């Protein structure tokens, strides 16, 4: 496969389909969008199958000096591969989720989604700093339109908030990038990842990148755009927002902040820890009192993302691997949960938790899937959520037992709000006649739920499939940040084991 520009092809397929969708009627637009996303998924599978684990760090590289000042450079490592896989896996499901619920301006809607897909893949595949920025920022336009045109009641406010919040975060990053390129003399991301910026400058650069990624992630206290955007976006919009867009923040940390500014990352680790701890506890408590299903899941996303950030800034392999798995798992699980909400929203057109109840009676299959994803969100062993959270928290425990302690409460609180949600929706009495009359999953919904369920179980039972491609890259990153690694607070010391016979003698002497 060497030499074949598969990454460009993956960018091109949705882009061409997006342009075509603009000129199509509703029905062919749907079909074309589905076909394009499926083709892209196939290409993703081919990409994964041809990815040489243990081979070169950057594979499938393409480089053309098309523009002044920066080049069209693509290439992926294991981390990018996994995130691209997540994107192409979720996209056909998103199209499926909007099959019937989107009735107005279908062509434009599908075009916006396909454009999103191109940009997401571009973000993860870009190997040029400015190219990355262009893809990263360009995502604002289609997402703004998706929320604003097809969203719920307060969609206008939510779309503005989403756009301006994320824009403000990113523009500062652009200035930092300009400075970095001026200093290092290259826009090549792999080169920059090995470049040692002066420690004093790193502080500012790190803060500028943090401004962008923290908003995107989102971290407390700049997370407030997320619940609004999630609640107002159409189901598929929420899936893609939670599933992939939030991962861009984490990807940014792992690709830029950590390897490019290791000293500054260590210097500001306390800030990340503090914000993450607050986020875990605070947003979990907020999630507990929500009446709106989507809002509840949105807040749970903030809590899960906080687990990602503490894992990233644990500065060890365990934490980093954990963070990656949490990101992938959260992409699947939160996407699935939004989908589950979408399924019943399509039937009853309300997200109010109180309007449902006893769904396990009339929708047993739906309740089963919902249960699976609820458990995965809680982090039940055997589901994907467990693996990531365990590794992340294990990683942070080596650095700070207090942070680990506080963040682990998130798991307990997570169990509380998710189970509470599940009980109110699926169990109990059928309080409302209209909710009780809802039919169970349709074939289309099965087709969306089953792959997600299988992926969640796969990642939970055999995470090695997903960890293997990333292992070498995470080890490289770990080696890169090793010089700035903070001292752990456990102060573990190798104990002096007593010789066996002495211990015996002491034992005898006691008698």
């Amino acid at each position: 496969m060497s030499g074949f520009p598969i990454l460009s092809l993956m960018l091109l397929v949705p882009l061409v389909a997006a342009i075509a969708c603009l000129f199509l009627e509703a029905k062919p637009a749907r079909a074309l969008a589905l076909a394009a996303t499926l083709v892209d998924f196939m290409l993703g599978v081919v990409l994964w199958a041809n990815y040489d684990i243990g081979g070169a760090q950057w594979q499938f590289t393409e480089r053309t000096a098309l523009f002044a000042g920066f080049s069209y450079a693509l290439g992926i490592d294991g981390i990018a591969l996994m995130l691209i896989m997540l994107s192409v896996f979720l996209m056909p499901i998103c199209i499926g989720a909007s099959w019937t619920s989107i009735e107005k301006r279908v062509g434009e809607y599908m075009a916006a989604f396909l454009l999103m897909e191109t940009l997401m893949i571009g973000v993860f595949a870009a190997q040029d700093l400015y190219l990355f920025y262009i893809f990263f920022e360009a995502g604002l336009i289609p997402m703004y339109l998706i929320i604003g045109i097809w969203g719920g009641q307060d969609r206008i406010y939510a779309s503005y908030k989403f756009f301006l919040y994320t824009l403000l975060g990113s523009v500062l990053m652009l200035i930092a990038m300009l400075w970095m390129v001026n200093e290092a003399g290259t826009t090549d991301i792999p080169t920059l990842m090995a470049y040692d910026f002066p420690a004093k400058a790193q502080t500012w650069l790190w803060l500028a990148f943090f401004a962008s990624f923290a908003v995107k992630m989102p971290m407390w206290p700049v997370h407030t755009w997320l619940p609004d955007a999630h609640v107002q976006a159409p189901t598929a919009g929420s899936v893609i927002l939670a599933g992939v867009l939030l991962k861009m923040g984490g990807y940014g940390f792992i690709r830029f902040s950590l390897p490019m500014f290791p000293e500054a990352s260590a210097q500001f680790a306390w800030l990340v820890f503090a914000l993450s701890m607050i986020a875990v506890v605070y947003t979990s408590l907020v999630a507990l009192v929500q009446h709106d299903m989507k809002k509840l899941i949105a807040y749970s996303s903030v809590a899960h993302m906080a687990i990602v950030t503490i894992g990233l800034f644990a500065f060890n392999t365990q934490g980093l691997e954990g963070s990656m798995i949490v990101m992938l798992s959260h992409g699947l699980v939160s996407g699935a949960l939004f989908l589950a909400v979408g399924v019943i929203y399509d039937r009853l057109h309300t997200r109010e938790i109180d309007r449902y109840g006893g769904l396990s009676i009339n929708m047993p299959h739906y309740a089963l899937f919902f249960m699976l994803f609820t458990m995965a969100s809680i982090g039940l062993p055997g589901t994907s959520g467990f693996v990531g959270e365990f590794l992340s928290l294990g990683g942070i425990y080596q650095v700070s037992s207090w942070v680990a302690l506080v963040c682990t409460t998130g798991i307990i609180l997570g169990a509380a709000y998710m189970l509470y949600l599940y009980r109110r929706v699926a169990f109990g009495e059928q309080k409302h006649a209209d909710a009780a009359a809802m039919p169970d999953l349709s074939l289309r919904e099965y087709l969306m739920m089953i792959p997600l369920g299988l992926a969640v179980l796969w990642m939970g039972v055999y995470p090695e499939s997903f960890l293997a491609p990333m292992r070498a890259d995470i080890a490289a990153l770990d080696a890169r940040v090793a010089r700035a690694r903070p001292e752990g607070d456990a102060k573990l010391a190798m104990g002096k084991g007593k010789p066996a016979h002495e211990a015996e003698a002491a034992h005898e002497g006691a008698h």
Partner: protein
Amino acid sequence: MDWLQSLRLIAPEETLSIAGLVLLLVAAWGGDKAARLISVASVAALVGAAFLVMPALCGGAMGPDAQAFGDQYRADAFASFAKLLIYGAAAASLVIAPAFFDRLRAMRAEYPLLILFAALGMGMMVSASNLLTLYIGLELNSLASYVLAAFLRSDDRSAEAGLKYFVLGSLASGILLFGISLTYGFTGTTSFEGIRVALEGGLSHGALFGIVFMLAGLAFKISAVPFHMWTPDVYEGAPTPVTTFFATAPKVAALALTMRVALDAFGPQSDAWRQIVIFASLASIVVGALGAIGQANIKRLMAYSSINNVGFMLIGLAAATPAGASAMLVYLTIYVAMSLGGFIAILMLKDEAGEPVEAIAQIAGLSRTRPGLAAALAMVMFSLAGIPPLFGFWGKFVVFQAAVQAGLVPLAAIGIAASVIGAFYYLKVVKIMYFDEPADVVKGRSDWAHQALLVLATVFISPLGYLLTKWLGGLADVAASALFLAA
């Protein structure tokens, strides 16, 4: 320098002058019936002049070879770059005019002539290397512009715009002239070269005042804060094709002139004027952005947008480096395309009777009634806001890059953060067109010339524009280096 050589160097100006004078006679005898013919001839003259300036740009002309009449006038690569933009914008303003004026029966023969003379004046502005050439060019352009603003004689708003522009413009000319006289008095020369040499030794208080007053006068012409007050009123009142012209060609001319004055004549004392430029830049960005938010008229909104954009371009000037000058030229090129696209789209907003629609509220839901037009306008808006992957981002990008390279990181950071405020009102237009229920007012048919130009401008500001970055950047680099010969 012999006269023949000088006369050859000013060939574009000669072409425009002769064409203008001949067409004036045609207008005198032919009357308004000849307006269309004169328009076509004027466009031809502009295109011809554009071809005449091209060799200087492609050949990178600069230095003594490009000086005419004892260095009163320079036909160097920098002037040629600016002239190409000016002639292009002027020609576009001519092409789009008939469809607008015909309906009002106001397509008079003077319109193409005034544009032609304004273009001639602007060509002299950007080529000026002497304070007197500068002033002659500026006034030639300004006088033509005042009349153009008031071109719809029977329309109150147009007359008001012309009067306002005239009164405030004369005031600014006076300020500029005062600055010129101070500069002359304290440096003893009117030639840019002489001023540069005189300032290399040091800056006297008198010369500093000269710089301040000259920059104030020029700030008026480029509508930078705090001399921007005329812009919204004139843009709103002037007939839309004229507004299109104002937003593009004179902007290029005045900015290019400012660049030459600041970087060439006052080049040795860049620290003295940098703080003025930085203030004007940040103030323009912020005032332009905040002022636009409350606007209900789309032409006024574009006026504030132009103030905002000038602020960004001034960041490149503050850098005072060849990279900064080159970045400004790239930004100007993209800005001209965005403005043309924006105003042509506005020209195409017509109701059933063909009356122009200017209220932003009336374009609600445009994306459903006229999807193509709405998409073009949305692209212009996102591009003006500088959101990648649209080409408007590239203009901001190179300007900020130059500022960072010049060590002006705080300025770049504040400027770019303030650009987020600007994004708000561009988003508002997109929101009204895409999210709101259709008002269904825009129904008029569009002229083919408008459509063709709009498509052209939209393709240019689309991501395809990035393919031009190398070529555009190369030309701008050559052009900018002409300003830094002595440095």
